[in-house]
């Protein structure tokens, strides 16, 4: 370990897959989706791509996307 716990190369945040914290998983129903982009804008972890793909490696399952979806296209499913 480096003296002073310094981090001398980038990428440690990427390696830390925070998706493991998740209890509820957001599932998007693309049939219902009206492409308003609310979920993309509100996601605090930038886990939803412009193509509406959810990055489950880093999604912590906060549920904000489901809350903000005006047509209830995102459902929070219990994962564990």
């Amino acid at each position, binding site marked *: *370990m*480096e*003296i*002073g*716990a*310094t*981090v*001398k190369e*980038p990428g*440690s945040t990427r390696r830390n897959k925070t998706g493991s914290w998740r209890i509820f998983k957001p599932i998007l129903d693309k049939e219902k989706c009206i492409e308003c982009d609310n979920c993309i804008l509100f996601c605090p972890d930038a886990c939803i791509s412009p193509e509406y793909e959810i990055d489950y490696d880093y999604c912590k399952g906060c549920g904000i996307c489901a809350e903000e979806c005006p047509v209830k296209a995102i459902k929070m499913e219990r994962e564990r």
Partner: protein
Amino acid sequence: MALKIISTNRAVAEAVKLAKPQVIPVYPITPQTSISEYLAQFVANGELEAEYIRVESEHSAISACVGASAAGARVFTATSSQGLALMHEILFVAAGLRNPIVMANANRSLSAPLNIWNDHQDSIAERDSGWIQVYVESAQEAFDSILISYKVSENKKVLLPSMVCLDGFILTHTVEPVEIVPKDEVNNFLPEYEPEHAILDPEKPMSLGTFTDPNYYMEARHQIEEATQRSKKVIERVNKEFNETFKRKPNRRSHTKIQKGHRKGQQRVQ
């Protein structure tokens, strides 16, 4: 070698002037105040080329020290009692980031009841912060210990901050003859600080003070403990080198043995 009749606070300031720190963030507090005043005077007179930061609290003083040290500067600050208590959380940061900061602490009791006189509870309360603590008992020891502490703290085997503790009023305001060592000889004894382990350099980017899991945290704090243990030998060696370089009589500073009881004149490492 010039012999000056000065107060211990003045002796500390004179030693700091010779150590040439580039950044000095200090907040005045009784009985340390005159250290901050002398240093301000040295900087204003052009005797010491340094950035003297007039901070709004001791918490800011030590925070500025951590930032400046991480940017590669040699730094100095001084405080006492409530000031040291206000520095508390950043003391752990300084040790954790392995910033070789040197600080003078004029030992004073902690409130309440409010008291400005000598007591060691302020520095003893910070015993486990990861700082090396040196207790001095004369103006000469205070002077020498500042220079020695920089050399010990900046040693690659140590890299820990040091606190030079002097008894408030009993020592800080006592006037004694002090041998001021020549400038050029200090430059040989104490070369410029060149950090490698933790330095904010755009050419060599690194992150300091990041989040860590408990296993890494324990590892980092354990490294501090190992460095503290290694510092004992380094302190003895640097004291010996200082005595030889500046031809100090052993009886003037007879504290090269460490933590073997509390005999008069001994230096203690926490």
